[in-house]
């Protein structure tokens, strides 16, 4: 199949998932970012101060750049969506939201920025490889794997913008343009904090002190420039120190007297110093992948985080076909873990557009609870994931 036919098929699949599967986050974010077109610039205190009168009470947990990107997009498309769109955004009724006759149109339009970023990633993967066939394989694998389609379009995963920018940064790293890469990492951090974890490894990759300093300062400065105008207690509580941002450093073991060792941080620092002391070739790609494998092995991750590693795993499958099967199983286990969280919208409630009768079904968490402890089951899945991560991490670092 040629690229244009593949693209058409890929887009059709994506539009179907966009229209038929609904996670309420997309509506909550659309409601929150809709205030930009009404002139609200600083969304963080606005939502908190007006909580009592707003139909949806959630705080805006993303960074300002997300607010302006999605808010700006919504301002552009609002005219196409008609005046009922705003009523739908304000609707807090669990059933009336999914029974709205325009829901397909709303969801497709709201997920269009994801489609653009998704296709952009496919084309970057195509360009990333010197070998044309490898590029085409990466392009096809990105467009045609069920994991990313579900992660992006069912869960309305806006982490995709940071993923796209990180991949662009990686493209520039491959071209030995570290400063440009640092700019894109800075942009990615301004969407999602996780990209900041790549910065120490950029420093290792930099050739001289000046470059090392710049690849540190550029992303930090870009991030600070985008958040400082919004700096307030409400911003700190809602976005910067929200549970999701800090969850990365959750798992730890105590060493007494109130002190504890944070597992993820321990391994990340070990990775950094191993690169600093032992590695002279320094393939940044391996460090990025290993870093992300550490995160997924040792944190209670949100399903949307899985996208962070997705393009890198595609590259790995193309470059090291021997790892295809372990990576496939890694993806199966990784996506299974959140499906067993006690959250209806991880599974059954995604289908509420079909019918709200599904509300009567138990979640996988509750179904397992009838005969086994679901937390232990999740722990087992996560342990297997950590085991596979260990093997993949070992393999990619050993060979280089």
């Amino acid at each position, binding site marked *: *199949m040629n690229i244009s036919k*593949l693209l058409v*098929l890929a887009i059709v*699949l994506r539009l*179907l*998932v966009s229209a*038929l*599967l609904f996670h309420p986050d997309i509506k909550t974010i659309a409601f929150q970012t809709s205030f930009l077109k009404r002139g609200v610039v600083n969304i963080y205190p606005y939502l908190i101060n007006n909580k009592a009168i707003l139909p949806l009470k959630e705080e805006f947990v993303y960074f300002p750049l997300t607010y302006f990107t999605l808010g700006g997009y919504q301002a552009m498309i609002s005219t196409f969506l008609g005046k009922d769109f705003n009523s739908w955004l304000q609707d807090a*009724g669990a*059933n*009336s939201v999914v029974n*709205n*006759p*325009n*829901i*397909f149109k709303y969801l497709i339009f709201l997920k269009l920025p994801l489609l653009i970023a998704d296709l952009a990633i496919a084309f970057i993967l195509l360009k990333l490889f010197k070998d044309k066939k490898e590029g085409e394989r990466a392009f*096809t*694998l990105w467009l*045609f*794997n*069920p994991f990313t*389609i*579900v992660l992006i379009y069912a869960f309305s995963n806006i982490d995709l913008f940071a993923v796209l920018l990180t991949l662009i940064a990686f493209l520039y790293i491959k071209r030995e343009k570290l400063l440009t890469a640092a700019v894109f990492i800075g942009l990615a951090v301004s969407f999602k904090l996780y990209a900041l974890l790549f910065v120490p490894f950029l420093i290792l990759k930099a050739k001289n002190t000046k470059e090392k300093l710049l690849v540190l300062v550029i992303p930090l400065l870009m991030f600070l420039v985008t958040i400082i105008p919004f700096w307030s207690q409400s911003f700190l509580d809602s976005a910067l120190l929200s549970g999701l941002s800090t969850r990365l450093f959750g798992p730890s073991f105590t060493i007494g007297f109130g002190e504890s060792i944070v597992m993820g941080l321990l391994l990340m620092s070990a990775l950094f110093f191993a690169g600093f002391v032992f590695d002279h070739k320094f393939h940044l790609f391996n460090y990025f992948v290993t870093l992300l494998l550490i995160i997924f092995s040792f944190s209670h991750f949100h399903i949307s985080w899985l996208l962070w590693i997705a393009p890198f795993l595609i590259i790995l499958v193309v470059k090291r076909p021997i790892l295809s099967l372990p990576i496939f199983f890694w993806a199966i286990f990784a996506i299974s873990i959140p499906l067993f969280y006690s959250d209806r919208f991880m599974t*059954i409630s995604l*289908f509420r*557009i*079909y*019918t*709200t*009768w*599904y509300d*009567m*079904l138990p979640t996988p968490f509750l179904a397992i609870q009838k005969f086994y402890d679901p937390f232990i089951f999740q722990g087992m899945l996560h342990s297997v994931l950590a085991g596979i991560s260990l093997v993949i991490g070992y393999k990619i670092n050993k060979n280089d």
Partner: protein
Amino acid sequence: MTKFTVISILFLLFVLPIFMLLPIKMVPSGDQPGYGDMGRVSIYGTRTFGQEFISKNNNLMAVGTTIKNPNLKNKKDINFKLFDEKNNLLREVMLNGFNVGDGDFVKIVFDPLSGSKNKKFKFVISSPTAGEEEIIELFLIAPTDSVLSYNYGDEIKEGGIPMVTFHKSGGVLTNVKTIYSNLLSKL
């Protein structure tokens, strides 16, 4: 991988929803009405609650509503009796407060009543052995097209509890037809 992905996604979108219908043995007649601000009534001892309602469909087989069990103190029997318009006892169900959380949506399930469509029924909820400290509470709402009137103690008033009736499912094929016509209606 392309074929695998296309098949996986089509399975997810068009086959899995059908499998998910298999365990559904009853379907709601609509949405549960909002609680409103008409207060609550307590049930214990001789304080019982009666509700007149209309079943919107045939094969009525459950009544669902929100029940408060403050501090989970009620661990006594909760009786549910369903009567027809002529006050004939049709069904009787016994729950235990031990299984009712505070604010739970509770479905009281009984054998299906065929020919229940558009017929008037009455149910009475009581917890005769519960003391004053072991109350359960029901929310009150204004009358709707199916919630008609209630009696609490000696009072008979319009309205009732935010209830929803459930009806025996018409089978998988009927359910599939219903959900896909629901989807198509949104196109």
